[in-house]
């Protein structure tokens, strides 16, 4: 096992014992990147045959910057100075966060030349804790997708477990870099599942924290009432360490809540005895529209997915948790339709700022007319998915339709929130500590299989999006492999600001399954010889 495959908490210990240096750790990650990542995502890159044999997580590798930070940490350790809890731990950053002096593209042509003049709070807090950024990783354009195929920076990332599959999106580069051992940690965002879905597809841990737990300052906005910043890691402990460094109020984000940040590590191994964990039939089936008839179909999840959930419930029950079955979550099925409206309205509003005037791409043919400059810049700069979101958002918020669509969607959001309030209410009928569900309706799909069909792509997030509507936290954990060797994920949803409890449950499950044979399996891209 190379240093780059170690968990972050072990690397932090080894570094403090001076058994390894920060430079050793960074160099190990850089060697892994060199070995498996292939060429970085680039604007207008022509497809090449060998693209199918690499991960392509990165857009911008900041190797020199990382090595300089590593040398500084080694110098401080040698001088006996204090270093932060994440000292020497490499991480990658979804290229939707501003990091001063780096290209910050949102995987879009319209920001392809944008060098951020300031740094996002989440990134600066990780760096203050001593973590070392290796670079900016790929995503769906402006985060709009669940497969990472909509990036304007090609080749798009691939799933390290099977390079013909998508890594999931929109934090595709983040999860791929962590799964392939390029970095132990990555910073992602989740607006309807963009951390949890790809983490499940790539067999890693991902947390969407409570809305307001982590500052959004410096995050390029998509759906401002839904966007959450969260950690991606290979273990629950590492995700907890990472959240610990980022969470808390921020004077630059008026939605970053003033709620005390607990010690996420202290209670990690307290166990689940006495906890009440729910299972809901509404999370064990999917509902999707037939666009021709307008009828909604329902079908059960694949057997391997529901089996992983029932097995986790059995394990947690064996550890002393009480499993509560048949928990009704009747409004889950409305999550996607409501999201189609709310997220598009917010996206359209957020995307109006890109106009070719102050920063980013500007058309070469403005023809001495400001209106033409706007139109041509936006037409040439945005890909299809941002354009579609702008058009949809403008339509459903238009004066004559906003009651029918936007207001109704916001009311449905209230119903979805009430579902969760009912099951987590400490004096209610269910009194749950968490709801246990599958993370995704199916494992990672083949590249090219869904991309272009914007409705089917959105329905991939069906089991994730309710948590974004409600603002509650959701943790995804790897829970085995399917018959084709693709990772399966399970999800824990909890009440507001219950990240500590979700981590405790996750860690219990992790310890109980430590000796499972699938835990020994490695992604194909590593089994090939890395």
């Amino acid at each position: 096992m190379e240093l780059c495959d170690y968990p972050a908490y072990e690397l932090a210990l080894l570094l403090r014992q001076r058994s390894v240096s920060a430079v050793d750790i960074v160099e190990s990650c850089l060697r892994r990147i060199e070995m498996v990542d292939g060429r970085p995502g680039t604007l207008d890159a022509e497809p090449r045959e060998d693209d199918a044999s690499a991960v392509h997580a990165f857009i911008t590798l900041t190797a020199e910057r990382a090595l300089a930070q590593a040398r500084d940490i080694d110098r401080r350790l040698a001088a006996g100075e204090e270093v932060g809890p994440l000292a020497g731990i490499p991480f990658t950053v979804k290229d939707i966060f501003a990091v001063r002096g780096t290209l910050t593209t949102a995987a879009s042509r319209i920001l392809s030349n944008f060098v951020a003049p300031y740094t996002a709070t989440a990134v600066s807090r990780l760096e203050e804790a001593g973590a070392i950024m290796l670079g900016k990783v790929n995503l769906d354009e402006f985060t709009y997708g669940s497969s990472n195929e909509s990036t304007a920076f090609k080749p798009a990332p691939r799933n390290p477990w099977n390079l013909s599959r998508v890594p999931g999106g929109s934090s595709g580069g983040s999860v791929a870099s962590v799964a392939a051992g390029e970095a132990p940690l990555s910073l992602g965002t989740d607006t309807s599942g963009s951390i949890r879905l790809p983490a499940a597809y790539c067999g890693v841990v991902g947390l969407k924290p409570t809305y307001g737990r982590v500052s959004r300052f410096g995050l390029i906005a998509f759906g401002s009432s839904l966007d959450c910043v969260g950690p991606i890691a290979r273990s629950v402990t590492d995700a907890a360490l990472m959240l610990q460094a980022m969470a808390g109020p921020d004077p630059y984000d008026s939605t970053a809540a003033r709620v005390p940040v607990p010690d996420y590590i202290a209670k990690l191994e307290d166990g689940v005895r006495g906890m009440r964990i729910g299972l809901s039939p509404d999370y064990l089936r999917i509902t999707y529209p037939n666009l021709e008839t307008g009828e909604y179909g329902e079908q059960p999840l694949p057997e391997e997915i529901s089996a992983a959930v029932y097995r986790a419930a059995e394990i947690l029950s064996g550890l002393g948790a009480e499993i509560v079955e048949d928990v009704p979550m009747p409004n889950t099925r409305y999550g996607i339709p409501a999201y189609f409206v709310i997220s598009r309205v917010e996206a359209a509003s957020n995307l109006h700022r890109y106009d070719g005037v102050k920063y980013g791409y500007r058309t070469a043919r403005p023809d001495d007319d400001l209106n033409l400059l706007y139109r041509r810049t936006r037409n040439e700069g945005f890909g299809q998915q941002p354009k579609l979101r702008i058009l949809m958002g403008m339509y459903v918020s238009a004066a004559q339709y906003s009651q029918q669509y936007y207001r109704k969607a916001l009311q449905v959001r209230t119903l979805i929130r009430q579902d969760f309030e009912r099951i987590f209410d400490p004096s209610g009928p269910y009194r749950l500590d968490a709801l246990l569900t599958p993370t995704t309706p199916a494992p990672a799909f083949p590249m090219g299989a869904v991309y272009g069909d914007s409705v089917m792509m959105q329905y991939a997030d069906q089991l994730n999006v309710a948590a974004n509507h409600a603002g509650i936290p959701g943790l995804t954990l790897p829970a085995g492999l399917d018959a084709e060797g693709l990772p399966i994920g399970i999800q824990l949803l909890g009440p507001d600001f219950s990240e500590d409890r979700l981590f405790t449950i996750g860690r219990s499950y992790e310890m109980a399954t430590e000796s499972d044979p699938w835990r020994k399996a490695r992604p194909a891209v590593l089994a090939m010889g890395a």
Partner: protein
Amino acid sequence: MTRQFIDRETFDHLVQLAALELDETQAEYLMRELNNQLSAIQELAAIPVDPDLPASLHGIPYSAETSPGLRPDEWHPFPNPDEILAQAPETDDRYIVVPDIPHTTLE
């Protein structure tokens, strides 16, 4: 065939409002997907809700204790304004240059 919720005329109007300029291939794809998405949200109409049910603009409630509250209205100069200006596609003596705004006569 998906139900058509918007016709070409409405679509073209939306494109104008969105400050976009589409070629025919893009327009065809976007209009089809837009109709598909509108078809997918029709389910919302059938959900029975009490007209008095409040609309949620965000999920979690903010109270006086959890909300960060308002900051003092103070001016904080940005430390490196030249890095911001350096992002502008065209500048002249620290002014950002844009083409003329076409004149329109208001009725």
